[in-house]
């Protein structure tokens, strides 16, 4: 037991572990060097956990989709696989967010990650709970879990917007450049560049003015979403639209090849959209 404690302690104290893949490599090196023959190069094994996790995450995502359609029996092996996959998909984004905060000490933007990434782990956790405890009474608890997940994400992003996170400024500038043209790239003369400087400065000013307003909007939306005893569908729908718009801005600002950045944030709009659908269906049932 003490061996594991020492290893874990080493892993966390080692400055090498400044990223999750780095952590995986370090775990690989520490444990690999203990259990594998000395001729086995620690570096070779060190790469493998990173790829293994990548492979398992993809596999788990696919499996969760398929098993969702198959709806395996409660006591079946497939149901256990479903639980395991959902557990992995919950824990991975949770720990990634925590590590992102811990390995960037003093960075206020990374400190918001555990909240800002909340929908990423709240969504699979909600599915896990619904699969494990499908009783009707639990639906309300799961709904609140999702509400808090969305709230965390909007608060996290709202704080970053309020503090003018540089990448958020660039999201707005990049999107404006896409739709209005980039004056810097099209400049051919010194006069053009002078003009481009003015336009660039005005776009930066617009972005820096818009972000605190966006932050206030985010906080108001969160307050309305969390109102006890209220299910304001318009708020959920607006949060869904806003979640998708901001996620899509990764592509409009940085290029369409950044589709994966949208995919990563699909829950930012997806979960509020789910809440909107859910509340709509509840209303329809009541009427019928």
């Amino acid at each position: 037991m003490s061996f594991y404690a020492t290893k874990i302690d080493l892993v966390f104290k080692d400055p090498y572990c400044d990223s999750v893949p780095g952590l995986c490599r370090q775990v690989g090196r520490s444990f690999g060097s203990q259990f594998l023959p000395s001729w086995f190069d620690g570096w070779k094994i060190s790469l493998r956990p990173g790829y293994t996790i990548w492979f398992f995450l993809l596999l788990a995502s696919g499996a969760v989709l398929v098993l969702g359609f198959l709806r395996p029996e409660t006591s079946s092996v497939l149901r256990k696989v479903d639980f395991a996959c959902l557990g992995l998909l919950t824990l991975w984004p949770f720990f990634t967010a925590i590590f992102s905060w811990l390995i960037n000490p003093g960075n206020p933007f990374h400190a918001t990650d555990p909240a800002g990434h909340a929908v990423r782990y709240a969504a699979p956790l909600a599915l896990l709970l619904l699969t494990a405890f499908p009783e009707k009474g639990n639906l309300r608890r799961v709904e609140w879990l999702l509400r808090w997940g969305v709230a965390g994400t909007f608060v996290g992003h709202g704080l970053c917007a309020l503090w003018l996170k540089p990448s958020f400024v660039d999201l707005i500038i990049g999107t404006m450049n896409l739709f209005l043209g980039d004056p810097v790239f099209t400049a051919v003369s010194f006069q053009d560049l002078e003009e481009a400087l003015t336009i660039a400065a005005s776009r930066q000013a617009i972005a820096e003015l818009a972000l605190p307003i966006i932050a206030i909007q985010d906080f108001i939306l969160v307050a309305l979403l969390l109102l006890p005893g209220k299910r304001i569908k318009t708020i959920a729908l607006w949060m869904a639209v806003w979640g998708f718009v901001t996620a899509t801005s990764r592509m409009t600002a940085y290029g369409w090849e950044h589709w994966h950045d949208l995919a990563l944030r699909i829950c930012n709009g997806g979960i509020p959209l789910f809440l909107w659908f859910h509340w709509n269906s509840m209303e329809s049932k009541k009427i019928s």
Partner: protein
Amino acid sequence: MKIKILTQLLLFLTPLVSIKVFSETPWLDQKYVETRMEDLAPVKGDGPSQWRVIWTKEPSTKATISWTTAKKGSGHKVRYGIRSEGKLNEVGKILEAQRSGAYSGAKGQYYHHARISGLKPSTTYHFEVESDGKKSPVLHFTTAPSDDREFRLLFGGDSRTGIDARAQVNLLMADLSEKDDQLIAFAHGGDYIVSGRSWSQWSTWLSQHELTVTKSGKVLPIIPTRGNHDGGPLYDEIFDTPGGSGKNYFHTMISPKVALVTLNSEISAGGDQQAWLAKTLFDLRPKVRWLLAEYHRPVWPAVKSPGKAKKFWVPLFEKFNLDLAIESDGHVIKRTVPIRNEKKDPTGIVYVGEGGLGVPQRIPKSNRWYLQSPGMTGSDHHVMRVVFGKEKMDYEVILLDGKQADHYEFFPR
């Protein structure tokens, strides 16, 4: 018989003793590093410590001499001049520190910056800093040239962890500097320490920076770049707000034919900074032979995903035919193939660096297309040295043991 044995023994032992005593790389010996670290000027009392010279815009005529005191003190000045006959010139000038203040989060330590100007190009200036009557040793640095002579610069990034290894790389830099009068400055690519808001970490880095000073007192002026771990106010307090508050981007005319553009990948890359970059490159390109850019987060990374600045900066690098881009953050050694329009192109831009000034090294993703031969990757503590000549620019990577890990020649465009 005894004499014969003694002679043989001496013949056998002499090389061993010489290797130990006169090693060309003594910093590889842990005890030597520890001894050197014990000799660093302590940050205590009202005496000066953690001295450094900072270059930003016009290093042929200007420099900032900075230091630390453990007390606020009342008189902080620098005496500088050209040495003649072993003493500081009689006409040596005295300048009061223009900017002093308490380091954020520190326990009573203060920074002092004396911005000296009106210097002669390519001239060795001796200086000593004085706080409340207590003086530093007499140190010296050489100003940047105002003509087209050959000179060398060191580059490197990521000294944030691996404190012993950082000391070793610093000692390597001092050795390179001692042997080479043409080596005039060192550009740090950022991530000096783990947490930019931690004074204790910065203090260790600053004290260890003294290890880059040669035995003769030669100081390598530092051209600073902000890294993602260097957030907070201490960076500006330590380097006298290079490039202006909230910006930290500027260009350095190291000679009339060599310009280094330092960018800040930790603030908005588009908007003001992008427009400034475009105007600066537009202005510099026709004037200089060698145009370089340095920033922290790589746009053609060997480990992570590309920095967000890629979309805003790379088209400008390509439009204005940058000669070399120096990156950090990945903790490896890398040199890309020449890249233009997302493809290998002999007229493209070469991206080097990724940081090895002490930080533990990672494994580069060498299977990426832009790192294939004639590009290269590696993992080792290192420093980069660039020779700026008229006919060519020589780039090389030097490892802790002094061996060359990479070499590449650039020719004027």
